[in-house]
């Protein structure tokens, strides 16, 4: 009893103190000097940005704080933040597909006037990134972000394995051609099958690593690479939002089927819910011959002591029977409308847009979208993956960037994961259901999709 009493009074005083502190003590230490919080995903390029930002602080005296969130909860968390009119972020490097919602809901500050005033021209940036990261409505000169991080899906492979004579001859004996980084999806599958289960340096290795994550955007960002190249489109180019027979065309169904075959034939067991990180782990630990992943990671991989340097090679997403595209990634940087430091945030963007800063951004491991950087004659030689990056940025396609993007994405995640990983139904059925889901979403959004 005595102990209880003592405990009780101790707990009470702690609690009282805590409650008082919590209610009247306010937030974390009030900012002494000027401070900006920049929000982005937690990945290699973010570390490069921190490094880069030190120069900004030196020049302006504005201290930079960062809020980096893992990719699997990035959209979830920051869309919640925008929607709740939170004040956590002053600057947000938001995903390309958020632009529609952010513009329509006025979550971002419109940058046209600022660009005009500071003589920042969108013509100086790679066209695909301007359309992808900055414009809403698409293909109109309404800018809500500055292209910050150009990115696309690409592939890495084990150059050292590909160049071993015994492996080369075994491949040639089996397929009657030389072992080389695949140029088409059929070749990709052949190479995958060839490596799958093969014993290399006493370790069992697997063919390829591909995206299969369920919770956020993983499997969609993977499967679209195959879909585009098999003839899938989001809607009828002549009739916006008309999806019947386009999204679920027989060609698209074949593309989806191909992705599943690739998943079944050539990936490591247990890769049922894998995204960027699992891919990096698998590749770095020497488990796979080929890896699908974002270009953003390639600088880090190239520097990896075990699989980097001479041992790693890069190739562009292979072509399919109906075309050659790759999934666009990357983000623009925007000023959050509820920020209390908008002027400082704009000053950061102004600083960031300078060609010298952009050049350094690329050197540190970020991907600049500035033409002056990427169109420079020595750019292709500046990194092992630079030529593939340039080629990829010329053939990118992006997912829907509509305000209802999250619904469209979650529907696709579900339908595709159900089919590819959970073995539910056929690819045609999966896409038919997807058309149904998407039609409903667009109707709710007030779009005219009835006329199909």
């Amino acid at each position: 009893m005595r102990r209880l009493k003592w405990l009780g009074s101790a707990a009470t005083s702690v609690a009282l103190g805590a409650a008082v502190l919590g209610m009247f003590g306010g937030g974390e230490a009030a900012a002494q000097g000027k401070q900006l919080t920049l929000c982005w995903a937690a990945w290699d390029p973010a570390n490069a940005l921190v490094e880069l930002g030190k120069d900004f602080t030196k020049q302006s005296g504005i201290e930079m704080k960062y809020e980096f969130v893992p990719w699997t909860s990035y959209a979830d968390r920051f869309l919640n933040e925008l929607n709740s009119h939170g004040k956590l972020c002053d600057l947000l490097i938001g995903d390309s597909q958020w632009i529609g919602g952010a513009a329509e809901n006025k979550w971002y500050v419109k940058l046209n006037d600022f660009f005009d005033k500071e003589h920042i021209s969108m013509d100086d940036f790679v066209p695909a990134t301007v359309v992808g990261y900055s414009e809403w409505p698409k293909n109109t000169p309404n800018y809500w972000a500055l292209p910050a991080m150009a990115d696309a899906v690409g592939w890495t492979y084990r150059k050292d394995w590909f160049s071993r004579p015994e492996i080369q001859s075994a491949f040639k004996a089996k397929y009657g051609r030389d072992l080389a980084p695949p140029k088409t999806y059929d070749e990709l599958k052949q190479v995958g099958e060839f490596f799958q289960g093969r014993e290399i340096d006493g370790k069992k290795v697997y063919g390829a690593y591909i995206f299969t994550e369920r919770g956020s955007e993983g499997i969609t960002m993977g499967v679209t690479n195959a879909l585009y190249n098999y003839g899938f489109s989001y809607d009828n180019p002549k009739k916006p939002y008309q999806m019947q027979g386009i999204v679920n065309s027989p060609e698209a169904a074949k593309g989806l089927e191909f992705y599943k075959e690739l998943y079944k034939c050539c990936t490591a067991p247990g890769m049922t819910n894998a995204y960027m990180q699992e891919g990096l782990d698998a590749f770095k630990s020497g488990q796979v011959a080929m890896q699908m992943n974002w270009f953003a990671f390639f600088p880090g991989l190239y520097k990896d002591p075990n699989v980097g340097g001479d041992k790693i090679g890069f190739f562009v997403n292979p072509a399919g029977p109906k075309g050659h595209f790759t999934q666009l990634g990357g983000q623009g940087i925007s000023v959050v409308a509820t920020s209390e430091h908008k002027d400082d945030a704009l000053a950061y963007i102004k600083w960031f847009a300078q060609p010298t800063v952009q050049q350094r951004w690329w050197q540190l491991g970020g991907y600049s979208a500035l033409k002056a950087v990427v169109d420079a004659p020595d750019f292709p030689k500046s990194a092992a993956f630079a030529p593939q990056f340039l080629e990829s940025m010329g053939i990118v396609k992006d997912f829907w960037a509509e305000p209802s993007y999250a619904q469209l994405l979650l529907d696709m995640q579900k339908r595709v994961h159900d089919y590819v990983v959970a073995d539910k139904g056929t690819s045609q059925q999966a896409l038919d259901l997807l058309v149904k889901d998407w039609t409903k979403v667009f109707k709710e959004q007030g779009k005219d999709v009835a006329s199909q």
Partner: protein
Amino acid sequence: MSTIIHPDHAAMTGAGEVALSQPMKHVRGLSDRTIAWLFVAPTIALLLAINIFPLVWMIRLSFTNLNLSMSYLPLRFIGLDNFTDILGDEDVWFRLQTTARFVLWSVALEMVIGFGLALLIKRQFRGHSFWTTIILLPMMLSPAVVGNFWTLLLQPQIGPFNHFISLLTGVPASSFSMTGEVVLAPWTIVLVDTWMWTPYVMLICLAGLRSIPDYIYEAAEVDRASAWRQFWSITLPMTVPFLMLAVLFRAIENFKMFDMVNLLTSGGPGSTTELVSITLKRAAFEKWRTGYSSALAIILFVTVFGAANIYVKALNKVKQR
């Protein structure tokens, strides 16, 4: 000794209450009526502000088309459309079935193991109190943290779980994935939940067992009833109210389950382990369909409230026997 009371009945134990109408004798200071209201008011005010008002607001929203990611669209009242939409959606029914299966199996396993453990612990072996405390540990953890950490434990290549199973059965460790396979994943969430909450059931069962007076067993001994017989005719019937209570609490909790499963499987593979709370979270906070998800929330609330009420009635009947 332990007794079970039901909420409804507890409130009625009003014997000896100081009636407010009665003129108070010589009490100084504030009148009793004032004190009563002063004491209850803050709680009621808080509940009104944080529970009732939002609930009423949610009911209103459930008749609208509100979508927070498109809040610039005009707010329209669409009658019962959200409700008919949900009830006519076979996916929602699948999610409810998934939830029901999860609740059923996890509660069943927890009951069997928890009751078994309670029977064993009741034998008062040496050190039983220490080991009981050890067993309780999993239920002290945060479900979200548990769900997150089990993803590592269950990882086929680097997690210890598969290697442990492999040691026992000889099945190669990386040949199966507990969270990734359609057949295994539903059992995995049951397994982790059982690991976490069996101690809770055990505690309630223990209380039940300790509530049985010894003289009943003594009488049974005199009658030379076998241990088996004693179990079926004394132990089980007398602990049934406690068991039913444990079922009630666990079932409600698991019907609400979100955190642990969301972090463990995020509903996958496909939608194999997507419990209805995960569906609700996706609808409300990822798709931002506020109107629709309000309707779904109300349907869930009515379901759990209705089921709990029916169950409590049954529980009271058992107790009155």
